[in-house]
């Protein structure tokens, strides 16, 4: 069991109804964590359209979840 903070941005935040939340999770990796959030909140975006970051740096979906980590799901960006 790991305790993590998850950040939601843009359409993910609108769908989740929160900008961030603290979770206790048994997900083995970031991919599983996103899929469970997607199911819970009905996110339209499939995982292959997103990137993921841990503690302010880009990470890989297969990375394990570390206790105390801050995880951000990054939907397709539209700056500029």
């Amino acid at each position: 069991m790991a305790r993590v903070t998850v950040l939601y941005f843009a359409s993910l935040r609108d769908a989740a109804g929160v900008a961030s939340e603290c979770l206790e999770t048994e997900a083995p990796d970031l991919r599983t964590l996103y899929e469970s959030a997607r199911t819970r909140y009905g996110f339209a975006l499939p995982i292959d359209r997103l990137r993921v970051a841990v503690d302010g740096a880009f990470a890989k979906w297969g990375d394990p979840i570390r206790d105390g980590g801050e995880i951000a799901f990054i939907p397709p960006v539209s700056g500029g």
Partner: protein
Amino acid sequence: MNFRDAHDEREMKKFALSDNPIDIAPLRGALLDARAGAFASFEGWVRDHNDGRAVRGLRYEAYAALAEAEGERIVDEALAKFEIVDARCVHRTGELAIGELAIWAGASAAHRDAAFAACRYIVDEVKLRVPIWKHERYADGAAGWLHPQPEQEKPT
């Protein structure tokens, strides 16, 4: 402040997010250099239409910690890739009206080709990689986040 502190601070400031209107003069001023014979800049403005719809205004939101780190990386890449003296980029966050400056990038170089190329590279990469999102409000009352697919991206 000793030389090292001043140097480190300068190194950290090549890319910035700004919640306030971008003031161009100090950005351009920071790039003035005796070695530079050329300066190029790019300004991205908020336009009144997108994808065939009338736009009334927009809001940019960023994941600030990662956006600043990735933006800094992009300007560093431009410095390594092109024969430029220096470069800067600032991206707005918050509410913007039609015509407002959304992004500014500038590069100084000995010769103009590198300055143009570096500017283009910085803006292109920022649009692709930096975690900033645009929320548009349309004339018909609708609003929504833009999450473009790579093949749907259009030059602005």
